[in-house]
């Protein structure tokens, strides 16, 4: 199961504001590591921009698709596949809707900060108003467009909001360089923790 598929979003990824935001952050010639790169849509956009990008993915079907796209992917688990990378060997490490699926997000973020000069982290915002009202009214674990899974089949092991992440960075003394919030079609600037379905942070150690 991988939430990077077009099917999961029903969206053209090229028109995704969060993807364009990331693509604008990274410059041609820079080195990027995409953790949990899925079918490689983001990597392909970056590669076409002249970025030297490589990925890690645990689903072999995804890897076969990435090779088809002429992308370089390591078949492995992020939870134990980063140790060999040298300190600050990548300009960016990207966790694009990956972090909520890892076993130990705190440790992985620290590891990403070690090997990346900057880390781009994108996750579904659990404090979106639809999720809030869904829990309040139905009393059940929410199933939304962005998190279209049930409690028993979800790859998402952790649920967090933009505010949760800021608290984490504050506690760990991680520097937040940029923050941006999105829904399906545009960037959200007003009350993002309520109205954004996706939260994006650029951080560094």
């Amino acid at each position, binding site marked *: 199961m991988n939430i990077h598929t077009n099917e999961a979003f029903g969206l053209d990824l090229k028109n995704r504001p969060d993807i364009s935001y990331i693509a604008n952050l990274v410059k041609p010639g820079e*080195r990027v590591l995409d953790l949990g790169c899925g079918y490689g849509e983001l990597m392909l956009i970056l590669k076409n921009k002249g970025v030297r990008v*490589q990925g890690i993915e645990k689903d*072999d079907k995804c890897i076969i698709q*990435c*090779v088809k*796209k002429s992308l*370089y*992917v390591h078949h492995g688990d992020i939870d134990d596949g980063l140790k060999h990378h040298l300190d600050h*060997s990548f300009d960016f490490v990207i966790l694009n809707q990956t972090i909520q699926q890892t076993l130990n997000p705190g440790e992985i973020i620290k590891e990403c900060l070690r090997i990346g000069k900057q880390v781009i982290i994108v996750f579904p915002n659990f404090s979106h108003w639809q999720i809030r009202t869904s829990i309040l009214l139905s009393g059940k674990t929410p199933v939304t467009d962005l998190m279209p899974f049930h409690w028993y089949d979800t790859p998402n092991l952790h649920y967090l909001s933009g505010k949760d992440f800021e608290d984490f960075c504050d506690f760990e003394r991680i520097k937040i360089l940029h923050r941006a919030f999105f829904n399906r079609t545009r960037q959200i600037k007003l009350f993002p923790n309520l109205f954004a379905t996706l939260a994006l942070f650029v951080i560094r150690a």
Partner: protein
Amino acid sequence: MNPSETNESFHGSVGVVQTNVVTFESFTLEGGETITPLEIAYETYGTLNEKKDNAILICHALSGDAHAAGFHEGDKRPGWWDYYIGPGKAFDTNRYFIISSNVIGGCKGSSGPLSTNGKTGKPFQSTFPFVSIGDMVNAQEKLIRHFGIHKLFAVAGGSMGGMQALQWSVAYPDRLKNCIVMASSSEHSAQQIAFNEVGRQAILSDPNWNQGLYTQDKRPSKGLALARMMGHITYLSDEMMREKFGRKPPKGNIQSTDFAVGSYLIYQGESFVDRFDANSYIYVTKALDHFSLGTGKELTKVLSKVRCRFLVIAYTSDWLYPPYQSEEIVKSLEVNAVPVSFIELNNPAGHDSFLLPSEEQDSILRDFLSATDDGGFF
């Protein structure tokens, strides 16, 4: 074989082929000794283009030979990698010029223990000098130059072939564009050496061994068959053996075993003796055991020379060359910012998986070769 079967088996085949031998005046081994002359047995499939930039070198595994695809006159079975080499196949002979050569030290046409020593007029046998994986690759390089090819489009191989491909990438970094390493390793572990040692000791303990100076009608066949039986166990997986043989009794009249798996191994051992030389088995397994690009930081340093794209394939069920060894290579390449794709395929066939038909393997080989863009890495 009825006619329809013939058509079926020739579908996508390079057809009837033959092994050629090219002779070079002399060749100096890494150990300093010189082979005079050097003979290399090879086959080619497809056509070398005008720019000579579409050549792929296929490297074979321990018991392989130059006959990788198509059929020899009168043969019912094709070459050892016919699933993957041919028109429209992953190594597409409509696009690429495929070269497969027999390694030196072997017994399938290239210089080795069965070759005649010019000084004595007799076969070298065990007086043939030690041959390394590096020597095998250097000899292949001579063959490539013989074709006027400066840069190979790709070097590919599984198991021992993967070691040769890996060696190519560091010995001749500017002479290949793509490197494909399957079910292989940057050096043998103690366990891999152990398996080979048992095989060699089986040969050495055969009453016909005679320090390797045996006559052809009195060869250490029993020892070589045992070595092959041992090897064959490591090429398969627990799952594969369970499925194929279980605890079934042997077929036919074999008195010396109670089980189907036993008769299968006896058959494999005995048929191997007909097509392989005991001395060659020792030379080639020693070349494997001595090959070492190191692991960890040492390997990373060695692989810093690499200037080609890499595809590394491992198999979950391969317990002879476990996936961690492939990952070791991949990690060292990644630290050197080499563009590399790594996949661990979940094929149940064990080490031999790389030889067997698999849709995933086919598409990944095909697509990796088609997508030649290096992504700006070099």
